[in-house]
């Protein structure tokens, strides 16, 4: 059965009626939002039964204005046989960004999750070695969160309005 946006969504919906929260198409790419508590079951199902054996990418995004679901963990999955890709997202509260690790599903998730922890502070429960990876070990903040500006905020000679944000 060829995988399309509809068939993937239908399979997910029928298997996990409660875990699939939302879905949309953007630039002909399917986005599926899942319940973070059930991420492992969904990802396992996707790998074992729908053939998404290849984890293309795992990263996070911070949207501070979405209260209660500020940090999104984004998985890009690829079914190599059918050549079908889509995106799975799980939104976590910034106060308690905890989600189960995908290292048991794909070995390659290891460093990608370490990188996500390093930059966003997402704690992947069950990860074998959740340490900082690119930043120095004694860093106290998670630098890709939006509350940490790139520029020095005390400077007065640069007005952000002229730079788009």
């Amino acid at each position: 059965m060829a995988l399309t946006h509809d068939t993937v969504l239908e399979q997910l919906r029928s298997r996990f009626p409660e875990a699939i929260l939302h879905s949309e198409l953007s630039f002909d790419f399917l986005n599926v939002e899942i319940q973070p508590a059930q991420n492992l079951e969904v990802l396992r199902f996707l790998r074992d039964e729908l053939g998404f054996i290849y984890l293309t990418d795992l990263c996070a995004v911070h949207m501070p204005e979405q209260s209660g679901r500020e940090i999104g963990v984004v998985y890009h999955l690829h079914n190599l046989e059918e050549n079908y890709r889509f995106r799975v997202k799980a939104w976590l509260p910034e106060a308690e960004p905890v989600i189960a690790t995908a290292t048991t599903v794909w070995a390659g998730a290891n460093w990608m999750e370490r990188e996500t922890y390093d930059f966003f502070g997402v704690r992947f429960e069950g990860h074998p070695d959740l340490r900082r990876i690119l930043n120095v070990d004694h860093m106290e903040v998670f630098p890709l969160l939006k509350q940490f500006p790139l520029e020095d905020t005390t400077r007065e000679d640069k007005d952000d309005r002229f730079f788009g944000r």
Partner: protein
Amino acid sequence: MQEQQSIFGEDFLKTEEKQYNTLNLGPTHPATHGVFQNVLQMDGEIIMSAEPTIGYIHRAFEKLAERRPFYQVTPITDRLNYCSAPINNIGWHMTVEKLLQVQTPKKVDYMRVIIMELARIADHLVCNAVLGVDTGALTGFTYMFQERERIYDMYEEVAGARLTTNIGRIGGFERDFTPGFHKKLKDFLATFPARFEEFDSMLTRNRIFMDRVINVGPISAERALSYSFAGPNLRAAGVDYDVRVMNPYSSYQDFDFIVPVGTSGDTYDRFMVRQEEIRQSLKIINAAYNNMPEGNHFADCPEFYLPKKEDVYTSMEALIWHFKIVMGEVDLPAGEVYHSVEGANGELGYYLISDGGRTPYRLHFRRPCFIYYQAYPEMIKGQMLSDAVITMSSMNVIAGELDA
């Protein structure tokens, strides 16, 4: 004897448990070609475990990109895999074009294919020539670096720069290929294949080289897929995943080429896959160059493609557009796109979230090096120390791409 025992303590000679030596390979060891540290546990000459430390040249690209307009992100991408910077640049431009829904003319696609395949040749040449150096064959390296130099000369004709090229624009190229470029490319296509085959004959069937690299640092197809390997390293393990074929971009569907695969995923297979890819890239360049369509070297998107410099100096209209583009007075769509190209090391992906602002809201680079380097401890476990060096060299781990 009595005295020795007192130095090490009573239990030292009795203990049955093995003691391993800890060895720091790197961060600045010349054999690692970059800033890589591995803390190895050694049983004599055999590696029992390895613990890589990375991030020595981390430059916060993803954070930097959140403050830069789209065209200013291009120089950042240069510094990912700096051995094949044009692929990174063009991949980024195509990501933005996908967001803006700009259609590029066929001619731009073909020009891009030529530049990207030249970059792939340059990257693979460095990797394979340096693998020769690490196994003790310096000759091939000196010859192949001259060839790489000629590719750099061609970049210079197109973009003015050599290593960090910042090549092209969103929507195409700044100018059409110059007569100098045509001359250099024709010359390269005429003379390079013979010189490359000479290099190939130095190593490919060389008994010393083969003994040195066969069965060194192997990885199975299953593990490679689980580790999200990509590019030549994945293909060496026997999986024919190539973004150029799976999800053709920039008119790659117009070209006929073979995706070489290996069987055992060892250092020799990685070497052979790269050698064959160089031949296939030459074939693609020839096909693209000989069938170059007529047309413009830029897409029709005046809101994003910078006007010609001469016009900016002489025409008011062009000056206004130039100012608008540079100052970000242009409306950008909101949305999220993922675009990937086949970089020299595999699937190089750009995950761009735009909120309509002047800069990316979030930009994540899928860096193939970063993802497959985590398999390195598994690949060198049980191997000799000198094998660890050539395994890393054949994986083509580029510090810039690894650390972002």
